[in-house]
C-alpha cells in the first residue's frame, strides 16, 4: 500500500513554493511576489496594483487565517507598509525563515477547495469541495482515488450537494467546469509523478468571473 505512515518526517513548502509546484501541474495561481522587507512589499504592491493582500509566508506556517497572518484589501502604500511591519513582527521562532507574500486582492463570491490526500487505506486521492474558511464545517466535498480521468472529475463536481453554485450565480457566469477539471487532472498527475508529495491543500480556489484561481496553497512533502 502506498499510503503514508503518519509518523514519517514531513515538511510543508512555503506558500510561494507550493504555488510554483502547483503551477507546473495546471493549477493556476494568482500572480504574486515574495519579498523580505516592508519597503519591497510597497514596491511590489505598486507594480501589482491596489488593492492587495499581504501575508506572512514560511515553510512552517499553516493555517494563516487562524493566526491573523493574512491582511486583506490593503488600498494604499501606507497600509501595506504598516501591515508588512506587523506581520514580520508576528513571526515566532517556530516559524523558521519567513517572507512577505504580496498579491492582488481578488474578489469572488464563490470559493472552492481542491487537494490531494494520502489516505491510510486507499492511498492518494484527489478532492474537490466547497472552499473558504468554513470548508471543514460545511464539509461538502468529493474524493476519488488517483489517478482520475476527466469523467471522474466531472462526476466529482456533480457529487457536491451545493453543485448548483457552479452554475450562474448573482450576475456571475457559470464556473468554467473544464478549467476545474483540468486542475483536478493536474493534481492527479502530481500524485502520480511526485511520490514525495504527501498532501496538497488549495483553499480557496477562488472563482473569478467563472475562472478558478488558487490564492492560497499548502503542499506537504516527505523529507
Amino acid at each position, binding site marked *: 500500500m502506498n499510503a503514508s505512515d503518519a509518523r514519517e518526517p514531513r515538511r510543508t513548502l512555503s506558500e510561494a513554493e507550493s504555488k510554483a509546484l502547483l503551477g507546473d501541474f495546471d493549477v493556476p495561481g494568482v500572480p504574486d511576489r515574495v519579498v523580505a522587507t516592508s519597503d519591497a512589499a510597497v514596491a511590489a504592491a505598486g507594480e501589482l496594483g491596489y488593492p492587495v493582500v499581504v501575508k506572512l509566508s514560511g515553510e512552517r506556517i499553516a493555517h494563516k487565517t487562524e493566526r491573523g497572518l493574512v491582511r486583506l484589501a490593503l488600498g494604499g502604500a501606507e497600509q501595506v507598509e504598516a501591515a508588512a511591519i506587523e506581520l514580520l513582527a508576528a513571526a515566532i521562532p517556530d516559524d523558521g525563515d519567513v517572507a512577505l507574500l504580496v498579491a492582488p486582492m481578488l474578489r469572488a463570491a464563490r470559493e472552492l*477547495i481542491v487537494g490531494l490526500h494520502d489516505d*491510510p*487505506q*486507499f492511498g492518494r486521492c484527489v478532492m474537490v469541495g466547497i472552499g473558504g474558511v468554513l470548508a471543514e464545517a460545511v464539509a461538502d466535498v468529493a474524493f476519488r482515488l488517483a489517478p482520475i480521468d476527466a469523467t471522474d472529475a466531472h462526476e466529482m463536481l456533480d457529487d457536491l450537494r451545493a453543485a448548483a453554485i457552479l452554475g450562474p450565480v448573482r450576475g456571475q457566469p457559470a464556473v468554467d467546469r473544464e478549467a476545474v477539471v483540468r486542475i483536478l487532472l493536474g493534481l492527479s498527475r502530481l500524485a502520480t509523478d511526485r511520490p514525495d508529495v504527501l498532501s496538497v*491543500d488549495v483553499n480557496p480556489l477562488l472563482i473569478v468571473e467563472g475562472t478558478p484561481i488558487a490564492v492560497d496553497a499548502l503542499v*506537504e512533502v516527505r523529507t
Partner: protein
Amino acid sequence: MKPRIAPERFRAMFEPRGVLVAGVSTHPAKFGFVALHNIVSQGYEGAVYGTNRDGGEVLGVPMVTSLDELPDDAPIDLVFVCTPAAANVELLRACAARGIGAAFLTSAGYGEAGDDGRRAEAELVALADELGMLLAGPNGQGVVSTPARLCAQIVAPYPPAGAIGIASQSGNFVSSFQNYARASGVGVSRAVSAGNAAALTIPDYLEYYASDAATRVGLAYVEGIADGRAFFDRVRDVTVEMPLVVLKGGATSGGERAAASHTGALAADDRVFDGMCRQAGMTRATNVEEAFDTAATFATQPLPSGPRVAVVTTAGGWGVVTADAITRSELELVPLPPALLAAIDERLPPRWSRNNPIDLAGGETRDTIPEVLELVAESPEVDAIIYLGLGIQSNQARLLREGPFGGDPGIERVIAYHERQDARFARAAAEVSESSGKPVLTATELALADPDNIGPATVRATGRYCYPTAQRAVVSLEHLWRYARFEQRRGRS
C-alpha cells in the same frame, strides 16, 4: 493486482459433487449437527459424508472416524469443517490427499483469538496455498448455493433460488439478506459468510459471481478492508461485468492522524470510501434494507436508459409523496408528452390528473389500468414507471370475506372480481416491463401489511419485488439509474 482465481476452482465450493462434514455431533443444538442437518434437509442431491468420534450414522448419513474409511470412489469436493482449530491441519491434509478442492471452516480460535490464533490462521493460509485448496473462513457461518440446492451453513434460513450473489464479512448479514429474500421471494444464487476471510476475501467471491451465469448482481457487506487500493481495482473490474451493491460497517481510520491540511481533515470518516465506491461504479447502500432492495431491483428489473420516471397511481396522496421523493433524487418526474396525454384521455374518466403523477381517478372501474401502464411504458419520453395502489380491491375483498356477511353469493362474486383484477394488474406491470424493456416498480405497504393479498403475492409470482414503500422504490430506481449512467458515460451499456 492479484490474478483472479479461476472460476472452475469455485465449483468445488458452490457446485460440489459431494460434501464431507467434519466434526458431526449428535446433539441438535451443536453446530456439527446443524450443519449436517441443513445440508441434507434442503434438497442437496450430492453425496454427503461425515466424520465423528464414533462412526455409525447421523441423520442417515454415514460417519467415519478417519478419512481412510471413506469409499475410494466417494466423489467429495467440499469439506465443511466444524472441528476445533487444533484438528484442522491434519484434516485438511487428508482432504487434499483425497482430491477435495475446497474447505469451509466454521471453526473459531483463529485470527479473532489473540496472537496464538493469528499464528494458527497464518499457518492455515500457508497450508491452503501449499495444498492448492480454496479455503473459506475460518469463523464463518457457511455457504449457500441454490443451483446446487446446497445449504451448508450453521444458521437459517435457506433462501429461494434467484440471481443475487452475497458475500459478507458478517455472517449475520448473510442471514439478514436471506431472510429478506424469503420474505420478498426475490432469491439468491450463491451466498457466503467470509468469516475472518483469511485466504478467500470478499473480492475473490465477487469475481467468481461476476463470471457465474446464475448470478446477476453482487451484494456485499464489508467492514475492515486490508488493502483499499487492491479492493478498489478489483471491484472496479467486477462492476464492468455485473452491478454490485455494498453495505459498509464502521468508519474508516482515515481521520486518525491529526491532519495539518483541510483536505486531510475532510478525508476523515468515510468520504474517501464513498468516493471510491462512485469511482468504481459500485452502488453504496446506507442501510441493510436499502442494500437488499437495490440488489433485488438489479436482479429483477431491466436497467433504465434515462432518469425520466412516470408515477401511475390509483390514489392522489401516494402519487404526490412519490413525486416529492423523485424530485429530491437524481431521477426526474417527466412532464407527460401531449401524445401520451391524449391517449390516456381516451382511457380514463375525465377527472384523471392529466399530469404526472398519473392519478387514475378510479381507472380501476373503467378497467383500463393495464392499458394505461402499457401506453406509459411505450412512450419514448418515459424511462421507468412506479406503480402505486395495487391490492386495494383485494384488501376490501379480505374484509368482505372475513366479515359476518362472507359467504353471500353476491359478496363472493365481488371478492372474486377484486382479486382477479389485482392479480391482473400485477401481471400487467411485469408484462409491460418485459415488452418495453423498462423498469416498472410496484410499491404498496400491503407487501408487509398483508403479504397474502393477491396483489403483492402476484408480484412475487412474477419474480418481481413488491416494494413496501414508494420511497424505497424511488431509492432503488435511483441506484439503477446511477449505475446505468456510470456505464453509459464510459461507453458501456
